[in-house]
């Protein structure tokens, strides 16, 4: 489909409301959000390393498929094995650093389970013939939108990172690994399996009590209850969570969940 047959973009359409045209132009020119690229990349590499480094699904709709292992990290090895390696685990948006004596095996033990159904199948049936409602015979050739420019890695540490570092244990005890793994499973289950997330969060609370990840488990419990439409249970737990952890990285999600 060539651009000539496509509708005029609303910001260029004189028939569109003036306010809408101006707002769209402003939004299109807005700056990209700040992002801590360094921390994000480290977390990504850790997650990839924890998965073993190779792609599990070489099929790539829209970009060709069939590669096996061609997606090696361009920026160095994901998780270095050996003594003194550091694990970077992504936990609820916060980065947690744990010293490790066995980087490779620890990374596997601590890896977050792969989210299920991350790529839901497009269920919409193939559409009939294109229906360009507003053809634009006079539309000028549009410039190709270019990818975001490279950003300088932010020197500002993540809020979650600071909080997590402050709680860093001296060594990863076996119980801590189990607790972390269970919490990761609960967190992963939130994306589509709230009943399981709830069960795992409660199991974690029962087994580990006020452990290192109790805050996240409490949040998961609230979010899972909300997702299960059990608002009567979610609300008091959410309110208690917000009283106990008003500055938690999960506070906003909990607040939103119990408000719905």
């Amino acid at each position, binding site marked *: *489909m060539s651009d000539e047959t*496509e*509708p005029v973009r*609303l*910001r260029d359409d004189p028939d569109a*409301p003036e*306010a*809408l045209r*101006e*707002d769209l132009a*402003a*939004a299109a*020119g*807005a*700056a990209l*959000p700040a*992002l801590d*690229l360094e921390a*994000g*990349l480290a977390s*990504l590499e850790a*997650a990839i390393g924890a998965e073993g480094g190779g*792609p599990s699904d*070489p099929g*790539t*709709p*829209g*970009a*060709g*498929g069939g*590669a096996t*292992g*061609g*997606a090696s*990290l*361009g*920026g160095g090895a994901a998780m270095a094995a050996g003594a003194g390696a550091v694990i970077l685990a*992504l936990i609820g*948006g916060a980065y947690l650093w744990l010293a490790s004596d066995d980087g490779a095996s620890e990374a596997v033990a601590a890896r977050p389970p792969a*989210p299920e159904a*991350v*790529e*839901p199948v497009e269920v*919409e049936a*193939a*559409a009939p013939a*294109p229906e*360009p*409602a507003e053809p634009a015979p006079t539309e000028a050739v549009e410039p190709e939108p270019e*990818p*975001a420019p*490279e*950003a300088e890695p932010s020197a500002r540490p993540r809020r979650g990172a600071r909080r997590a570092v402050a709680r860093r244990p001296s060594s990863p005890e076996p119980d801590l690994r189990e607790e972390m793994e269970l919490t990761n499973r609960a967190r992963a289950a939130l994306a*589509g399996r709230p009943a399981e997330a709830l069960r795992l969060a409660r199991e974690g609370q029962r087994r580990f009590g006020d452990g290192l990840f109790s805050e996240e488990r409490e949040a998961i419990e609230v979010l899972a209850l*909300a*997702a299960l439409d059990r608002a009567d249970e979610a609300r008091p737990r959410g309110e208690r969570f917000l009283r106990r952890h008003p500055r938690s*990285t*999960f506070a*906003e999600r909990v607040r939103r*969940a119990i408000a719905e």
Partner: protein
Amino acid sequence: MSAGGERVGAADLFRAHARFVAGFLLRIGVPRGEVDDLVQEVFLTAHRKGGFEPGRAKATTWLCGIATRVWSNRARSMRRKPTEPLAPAEHAIASSQPDPEREVAAKRDLERLSRALDELDADHRPVFVLYELDGLSCAEIAEGLAVPVGTVYRRLHTARARVRAAYERGGAKRHVG
């Protein structure tokens, strides 16, 4: 970036496009507190797919397709429609000379647009954003989202009608800073 048809690994993709993906997620209504998490999920998914192979789709389009499906899945699992404002604080208008009044006006404009975009669900909002804000063609969007181009046209048509209706109902006049 790799050249000559070689696949681009997740780390290279992340370095080049993480901010773009974060911005796209915000624009399609992802709550700010979930953006970091979803950015990770997008690039992890890209890795699982074997990385990006230069071809018909651009890397950004391909990543937007992944981001849309990741968020759509998350939003459905949370049983809610995306309702996050356009994060005006982070979408401060790029300007070489800061002007507080203009920034306030711009923030107001983005909030108004956010409210209109709230009329759209997780299928229609990404198409509207990619077409109207990111300037992609319908064919590119179809490629990225892995849907027929007719579906893109239909969603775009519906989305535009809803957004226009929201503005016409609101009858808002732009505040000039």
